């Protein structure tokens, strides 16, 4: 497999290297070595290429080494938001993180995202996260008769919430938030991002319904501006800024 074991390497060949993945595992049914529900670390050493991502390494483990490893993924290209995980203590998408960018000389630690109940290995129960999103009513709210044609909007009006339309609901932000870790009642950054997308949409009329929900005890005022969410977002959304815009709308009464 390694370059040296084969015939002289061809021009343009991708270099390969050995890398160790240290994965936090948990089996709700237990394994011969571990009782049901116990969390433990397991290491896998693989030979990977410079173009491989963490997701490719996980695939290799699942397909060639240990089929019992459980994780979510769907698109494998940073679109669906299924494979957020805690890689070297930072929330990232496994499909958007190259192994060579993580210093493969040292073991790469992979844990499930924090603050949500672990179901198995890297799979967490996303329901509390989705429940918060549902509560901010993430759908267009209008009054009056439905127009015959599309609802018009100027480029400037659209630009106000452009950033928050990019969210893929991966939960990297919410599960990087220290307030969410300690207080599961907090809506979390993603729900505020989701609300921001409609609050500042000129076509939507439900902004004050949503703002009233976010004015709640577990709403925007729980945010302590830690910036973990902004750092975690794989879509580059300025999450903390969006949260501040919601706070400002509440404080000034102007949307």
């Amino acid at each position, binding site marked *: 497999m390694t370059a040296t074991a084969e015939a002289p390497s061809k021009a343009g060949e991708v270099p390969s290297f050995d890398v160790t993945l240290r994965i936090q595992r948990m089996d709700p049914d237990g394994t011969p070595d571990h009782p049901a529900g116990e969390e433990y670390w397991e290491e896998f050493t693989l030979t990977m290429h410079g173009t491989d991502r963490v997701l490719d390494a996980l695939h290799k483990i699942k397909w060639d080494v240990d089929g019992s490893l459980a994780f979510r993924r769907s698109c494998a290209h940073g679109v669906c938001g299924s494979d957020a995980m805690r890689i070297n203590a930072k929330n990232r998408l496994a499909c958007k993180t190259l192994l060579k960018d993580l210093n493969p000389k040292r073991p790469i630690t992979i844990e499930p995202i924090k603050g949500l109940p672990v179901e198995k290995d890297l799979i967490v129960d996303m329901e509390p996260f989705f*429940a918060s999103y*549902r*509560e901010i*009513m993430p759908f267009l709210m209008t009054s009056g008769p439905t127009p015959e044609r599309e609802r018009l909007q100027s480029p400037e009006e659209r630009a106000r919430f452009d950033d928050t339309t990019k969210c893929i609901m991966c939960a990297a932000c919410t599960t990087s938030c220290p*307030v969410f870790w*300690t*207080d599961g*009642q907090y*809506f979390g950054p993603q729900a505020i991002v989701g609300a921001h997308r409609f609050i500042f949409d000129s076509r939507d009329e439900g902004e004050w319904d949503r703002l*009233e*929900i976010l*004015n*709640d*005890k*577990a*709403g925007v*005022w*729980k945010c302590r501006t830690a910036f973990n969410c902004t750092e975690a977002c794989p879509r580059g959304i300025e999450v903390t800024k969006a949260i501040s815009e919601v*706070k400002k709308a*509440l*404080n000034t009464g102007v949307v």
Partner: protein
Amino acid sequence: MTTAESKAPEVEPLRPIRSGRSRNHAEQWSWLFMRGSGVLLLVLIFTHLFINLFSGDGVNQIDFAFVAGKWASPLWQIWDFVMLVLAMIHGGNGMRLLINDYARRTWMRKTLKTLLAVCVTTIVVLGSLVIFTFDPCPLDASGDLLPGVPTFCEDVR
């Protein structure tokens, strides 16, 4: 299970407001207060530190007489009183936020917040008493200076 899998997941009915509905925008006022009092504390504390530790003879000037001298002036009485009250309410409210974060059980939250309220009130009351009833040269029943008072009290009389 096989038939259920092809169906869309059931969506829970919307609950308009989740647990712990806030009273009269209390959390918003708390948030605004932390910022307002923070700015005031910045001015109050750093002026306080500058006057006590840098101006004049610096740290070495601080003794009983220095404190007595400052509290002889209403300006510093008010200054220290405002600083005391703001810092205690600001710090107390900050601790309330932390209790809300970390104390999961209702009885624990209630106990800690009661304890906090008692501490804040006691310190504010005691501190205010010291600031406004402070007398550097207390007299005994016969009108003489009590033993142990600072020497400058002789000059003042």
